[in-house]
């Protein structure tokens, strides 16, 4: 599904965000990405959707080397991957409904499907009654849930979740985790970066720990930290 061969990323300012990462994630896996602030988690995810290009090495998603994709192929890559961005990246001039619908509009989905799926997914994240509001009228956690709704609405084959519960209380977080588990159960590969020890420890899934751009741990039923 996703393979990284000796991937490094050095930003123009000289910061080494990833240093020689080798990784293999299979279809249907649920992977936690943990590590301190600035370890390279977001960089890793941005590389999979080709938002950031590696300085060296190969990133292969669904059998395609994303580095070699032609510009017009990039949108099609991104449509198969749902992304929950750490900073939400909601369209500021669109309502909650339109923000979520946008992910379906870009794939030219029929109107009927949009009108059915968007309210359903908003209901899943508990925002059914906020559909007509603009992002700046929502609390931090509500914005985060809109971002989650948009990422899962078109049933992507891969879901990248960058700190999807960073602004959510424990109950809501756990609700989101159950949602992700259900999606994962349907075959979607999920990669989730998080700092939430309680969630990682409870889920007992594969845990990859990054530190200073290197993979320092990769356990199949891991916990958040080696010791607390």
């Amino acid at each position, binding site marked *: 599904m996703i393979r990284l061969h000796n991937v490094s990323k050095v930003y123009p300012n000289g910061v080494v965000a990833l240093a020689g990462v080798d990784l293999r994630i299979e279809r249907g896996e649920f992977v936690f990405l943990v590590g301190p602030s600035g370890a390279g988690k977001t960089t890793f995810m941005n590389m999979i959707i080709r938002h950031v290009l590696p300085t060296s090495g190969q990133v292969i998603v669904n059998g395609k080397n994303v580095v070699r994709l032609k510009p017009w192929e990039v*949108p099609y890559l*991104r449509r198969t991957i749902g992304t929950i961005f750490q900073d939400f*990246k909601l369209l500021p001039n669109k309502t909650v409904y339109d923000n979520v619908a946008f992910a379906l509009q870009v794939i*030219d989905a029929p109107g009927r499907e949009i009108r059915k799926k968007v309210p359903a997914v908003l209901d899943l994240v508990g925002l059914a009654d906020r559909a007509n509001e603009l992002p700046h009228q929502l609390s931090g956690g509500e914005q985060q849930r809109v971002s989650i709704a948009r990422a899962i609405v078109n049933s992507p084959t891969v879901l990248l979740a960058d700190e999807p519960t960073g602004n959510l209380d424990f109950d809501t977080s756990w609700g989101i985790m159950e949602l992700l588990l259900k999606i994962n159960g349907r075959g979607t590969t999920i990669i989730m970066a998080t700092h939430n020890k309680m969630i990682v420890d409870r889920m007992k899934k594969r845990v990859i720990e990054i530190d200073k751009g290197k993979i320092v741990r990769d356990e199949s039923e891991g916990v958040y930290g080696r010791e607390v």
Partner: protein
Amino acid sequence: MRFRTFCYFWSEALRNIRRNVNLISLGTIAASLFILGAFFLIILNLNHLTDNLTSRIEIRVFLKDGVTARDREALKTRIWALGGIKTIDFISKEEGLKRLKEQLGDDEGILTAMDFNPLPDAFSIKVAKPESVKALASRIARLPGVESVNYGHGLVERLFALVKAVWVITLALSVIFISAIIMIIGNTIRLTLIARRREVEIMKLVGATDWFIRWPFLLEGMLVGLTGAIVSAVALYFLYGFAVRRFMSALPFIPVVTGGVALRQLCIGLLAAGATMGAIASVVFLRKYLRA
């Protein structure tokens, strides 16, 4: 493309236009196109004026004393045969004196003091191409029965110099003004879109193709350009009508273009220019952010 997607593009464009940022561009575009249009009208009138002046150029052919009516007709035919002539009018010596008196105005006292008519009979010739006056005049001068030929002692040359100078200047000014205006409109649209750079980036990250992002912007640019053009065209149409009426009542002897077809064509041109510029500016700008 699905019909739904098509509708989406239009509704996006319309919704974005309703946000205030674009109303500002609209005002700028309207103002710019207004200046452009006003400038064209000035050029149009200068053109009209010079046309009018050149149409007054004539060759006066003075006949030898004692040329008979028969010889005159023969001469007229030979002059026609030279080609490039629009009209030939015969002006008898009496008619010539009358006209001279009119021309002299208050100074006519000098002529009334004379008890004979010193003027010869003459032809007044209007030519098709003002540039051919000089050559034609010298050929007519060589015809039999012609005493002398007068076509304005360098007046024609001076008039051409004037027309040429006016054209060079208006052309230079147009080029400069038009490029300035295009720059202004282009920059306005760019600024409007820079405010939405983040939006474009997010759309790309969510999997939108370039054209999916481009279409609403393109329609929006077109509509904003068009609306600005409509505002400027309407303003120009009525203000010009008003200006012409004022001008004609103040200075009936100076010819002005009263509007009609030319004005209407200009307005249509403005609309087309507005829409095209809006669309092009959007697309050109977006290139920068879509390639990123």
